């Protein structure tokens, strides 16, 4: 029978202050987890509202102006408050130091500061967006964002603040991975989740400052009329898009790379097989990070960018397919002849493989210059990035959440309800977004409040799917929270995995390990030992 250790990080210190001012990376990870789940709930409610409004053409539940604000809120909350910090700041914060056998991240105070800045920026941004009725979309393109009367300045200031939290997390992780590894943890013995976080952190510190200067320039443009994005004053609004996408395209890989890291862990653990092509997966993360900085112009094919530049950006975009393909094929090769077990985390990994492949391949359509001219700003784009972001990142995030939930709390969730939940989510997701591919291919433009009668059935179908997905998420919230209090003790290593975090107790003690662990085998050496599952 498994027991929960009497003293662990959850009860070592008591009181609300011991949480809000904690320097323990595990507690900060949980603080981040609660915050981003709140953001996910908020963004999810906005998503349901959007789908309700689009149930029929014309007005259903809200005015056109409100609709514009709601999709702006949905985009900005999901991107800046949920998906960018999601995996690194919550799961990464909790697991990374344990995976490398460290007591904490390199700069615990900076870690706490990062969360406080996140909270401040998040509240600031949400309040200013809803009170100031911002309707620019999350991209806040000029010249609309510099001429509209809504409170773009306050919202972008909130995003500027959030940028610091992202930079601090990235900086902390890079130094932690370089300097805090346990004896014997060489670079090529690091779990692939760590490689994913490392590549992510590199993008975070390289790209986020450019977002910072972009919103500073936008604020100055609005407040002081400096005129550098204002065409009437000799400025170039397309330059704003260069600035914006130099950050925001790599940011897409901030979202997906850690998810890919989780998938590597899940697939190897649940097929009980050494990961196929370890170095190829590790280096393809770095390759994706590098290539992500070369392709931003593919968002600007119809923005007045030079055709020659568009052609080159289109070509460079195809390069992203290579490292992504390498990962997919290596995961498939890992599965081949593995002892596959269909635990919930693995089901999320399978969902990821299926949905992310569709999302990635449709990305190739959109990266093709000539095709994009037709598909640009249609629901095809919306469907594509939801397949990558929700089908990819969110599936990986929930996979990781289910995988490490017993490590967080020492207790197991109900496996049957978990499987029911993912069935709802997966089916609902496909109904919602596969129909949007069809809508987009038929010419339905994105962000429109109303539409022609001919799109009605597909829009209705899509809205129907969003409710099924919502049911899946609600079930998940219930059984996960229930598990925290009443779940059966999970034991130290419920999945029989080999990475470091499973060598300590569940939940871990305050400084992660009773003594610094030494490395006796690699993270995926299932050909040498297969640990016993404690559940």
């Amino acid at each position, binding site marked *: 029978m498994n027991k929960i250790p009497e003293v662990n990080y959850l009860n070592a210190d008591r009181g609300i202050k011991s949480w809000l001012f904690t320097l323990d990376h595990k507690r900060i990870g949980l603080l981040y987890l609660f915050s981003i789940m709140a953001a996910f709930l908020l963004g999810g409610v906005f998503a349901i509202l959007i789908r309700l409004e689009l149930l029929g053409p014309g007005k259903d539940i809200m005015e056109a102006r409100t609709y514009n604000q709601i999709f702006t809120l949905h985009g900005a909350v999901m991107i800046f408050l949920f998906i960018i910090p999601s995996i690194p700041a919550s799961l990464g914060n909790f697991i990374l130091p344990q995976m490398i056998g460290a007591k904490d991240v390199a700069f615990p105070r900076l870690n706490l500061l990062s969360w406080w800045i996140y909270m401040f920026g998040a509240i600031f941004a949400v309040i200013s967006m809803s009170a100031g009725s911002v309707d620019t979309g999350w991209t806040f393109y000029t010249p609309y964002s510099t001429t509209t009367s809504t409170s773009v300045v306050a919202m972008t200031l909130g995003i500027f603040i959030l940028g610091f939290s992202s930079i601090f997390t990235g900086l902390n992780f890079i130094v932690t991975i*370089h300097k805090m590894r346990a004896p014997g943890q060489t670079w090529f013995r690091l779990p692939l989740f760590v490689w994913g976080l490392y590549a992510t952190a590199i993008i975070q510190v390289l790209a986020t400052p450019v977002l910072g200067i972009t919103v500073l320039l936008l604020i100055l443009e609005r407040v002081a009329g400096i005129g550098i994005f204002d*065409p009437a004053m*000799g400025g170039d609004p397309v330059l704003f898009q260069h600035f914006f996408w130099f950050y925001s395209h790599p940011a897409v890989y901030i979202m997906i790379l850690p998810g890919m890291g989780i998938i590597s862990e899940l697939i190897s653990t649940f097929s009980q097989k050494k990961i196929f092509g370890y170095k190829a997966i590790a280096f393809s993360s770095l390759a994706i990070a590098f290539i992500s900085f070369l392709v931003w112009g593919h968002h600007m094919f119809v923005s*007045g960018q030079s*055709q020659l530049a568009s052609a080159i950006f289109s070509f460079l975009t195809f390069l992203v397919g290579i490292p992504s393909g390498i990962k997919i094929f290596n995961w498939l090769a890992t599965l081949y002849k593995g002892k596959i077990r269909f635990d919930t985390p693995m089901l999320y990994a399978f969902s990821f493989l299926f949905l992310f492949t569709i999302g990635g391949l449709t990305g190739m359509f959109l990266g093709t210059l000539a095709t994009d001219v037709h598909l640009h700003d249609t629901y095809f784009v919306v469907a594509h990035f939801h397949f990558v972001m929700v089908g990819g990142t969110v599936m990986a995030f929930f996979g990781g959440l289910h995988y490490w939930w017993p490590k967080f709390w020492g207790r197991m969730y109900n496996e049957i309800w978990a499987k029911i939940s993912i069935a709802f989510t997966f089916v609902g997701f496909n109904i919602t977004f596969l129909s949007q591919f069809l809508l987009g291919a038929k010419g339905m433009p994105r962000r429109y409040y109303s539409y022609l009668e001919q799109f009605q059935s597909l829009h209705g179908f899509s809205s129907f799917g969003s409710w099924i997905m919502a049911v899946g998420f609600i079930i998940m919230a219930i059984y996960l929270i229930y598990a925290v209090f009443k779940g059966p003790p999970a034991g130290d290593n419920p999945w029989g995995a080999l990475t470091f975090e499973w060598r300590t107790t569940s939940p871990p003690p305050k400084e992660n390990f009773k003594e610094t662990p030494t490395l006796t085998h690699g993270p995926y050496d299932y050909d040498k030992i297969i640990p016993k599952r404690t559940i």
Partner: protein
Amino acid sequence: MSGHSTHENRHVVSFKTYLATGTALLILTAATVGVSFIKLGGWNAIAAVGIACLKAILVAFVFMHLLYDKKIFLVIFSVAIIFLTIFLALTMFDILSRGEIYPDYEEPIEKNAVIYKKAEPAPTGEPVEDSTPKNH
């Protein structure tokens, strides 16, 4: 004075080296000011940026100890420069190659910009720059 090291075996750079670097930086400053008064056409900009790079390298390698410290710091600094170069190069490539395939697309933004000026009368096809500077 060289050959000192602290208890962590950190290299202590000699006073002479620092002074020589400082002097070199001041000489290069004089050089860049001097060169700017000579008409060299496009070479002026190249000379100015070249000398600035040389000065920056001196500061980074000696004052910031890149030459003596862990090589990973040099890597980090180089990565910053490389990605800044990518940002600059790809953006400038767009700006400079606009209109090469379809000449109509050359500077489309500023010429059509009149539509953003609410108070002004309808566009006459004249470039907007004639209307600025304003508030004489």
